[in-house]
């Protein structure tokens, strides 16, 4: 089941992310959690978690996104910032369910486009998003050493 993240989930989200990336970032995840809005108007931040119905407090995966407008000249669209699934819960449709849920939230807020950014060498996430029908968009990310 997919539900909105609650404050107590942030600990598990932080642990799951640290397990995957090797870098704990509790303040970062708490900040993203706080950005959620409830009630009136379009949600600025969307933070969803997946949990098994039998263990609703155990986070199997999470997704975080936000509606952003006019950055880089872009029309308002939904951005997916982070998506992670426990290694022992993969290949069971958890990531797909999370992506579908956030796409539904973006759609409900009137968005017609969903975007994300993936490192070129991150093969699994890249294949996952491609498998969900995402294609390269009209922007190219540029950068420079400072």
């Amino acid at each position, binding site marked *: 089941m997919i539900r909105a993240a609650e404050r107590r989930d942030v600990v598990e989200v932080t642990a799951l992310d640290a397990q995957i990336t090797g870098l704990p970032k509790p303040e970062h995840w708490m900040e993203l959690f706080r950005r959620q809005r409830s009630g009136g108007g379009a949600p600025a931040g969307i933070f969803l978690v997946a949990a098994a119905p039998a263990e609703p407090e155990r986070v199997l995966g999470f997704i975080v996104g936000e509606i952003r407008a006019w950055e880089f000249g872009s029309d308002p669209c939904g951005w997916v910032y982070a998506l992670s699934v426990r290694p022992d819960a993969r290949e069971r449709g958890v990531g797909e369910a999370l992506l579908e849920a956030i796409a539904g939230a973006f759609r409900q807020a009137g968005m017609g486009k969903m975007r994300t950014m993936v490192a*070129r*060498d991150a*093969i699994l996430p*890249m*294949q996952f*998003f*491609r*498998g969900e*029908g995402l294609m*390269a968009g009209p922007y190219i990310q540029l950068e420079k050493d400072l």
Partner: protein
Amino acid sequence: MKLQVASQLAVFSILELVAEPNRQITVADIGAKYGISTNHLAKVMNVLGRAGLVRSVRGAGGGFQFSGNARRTTLLDVIDLFEPRGVRAPETGEPGRHTAETVALGMVLREIDDTVRATLGSITIATLRDLANRQRAKAALAT
């Protein structure tokens, strides 16, 4: 970017085999659909067979079956069997081998090559099949 004919045939052939996993498909079947000689296709299937992506079943009713994993095999896995690798360093005797200009041009070409390889490496056969099915559905809706 343009793929060599052999690469295109390899991708099309695999898609045909994946579409009917319980049937052995002959090179004549695929050749008839894409209008290509069975001789050319046989060579392509031979390369795919050596790479473990297809297996041939001999005898009456024989043909080819896909033996890879459609959710894991990428376009890059297939195309790399037929295409020369992308950017390479200039060889002895080529102009500008040791110049900063060659290094600079190499950086740009490597960027292009990296992007192409990342794209091909991110599209699995299953993803391409789904993409083709969506195109088919869209075309059917338009008619």
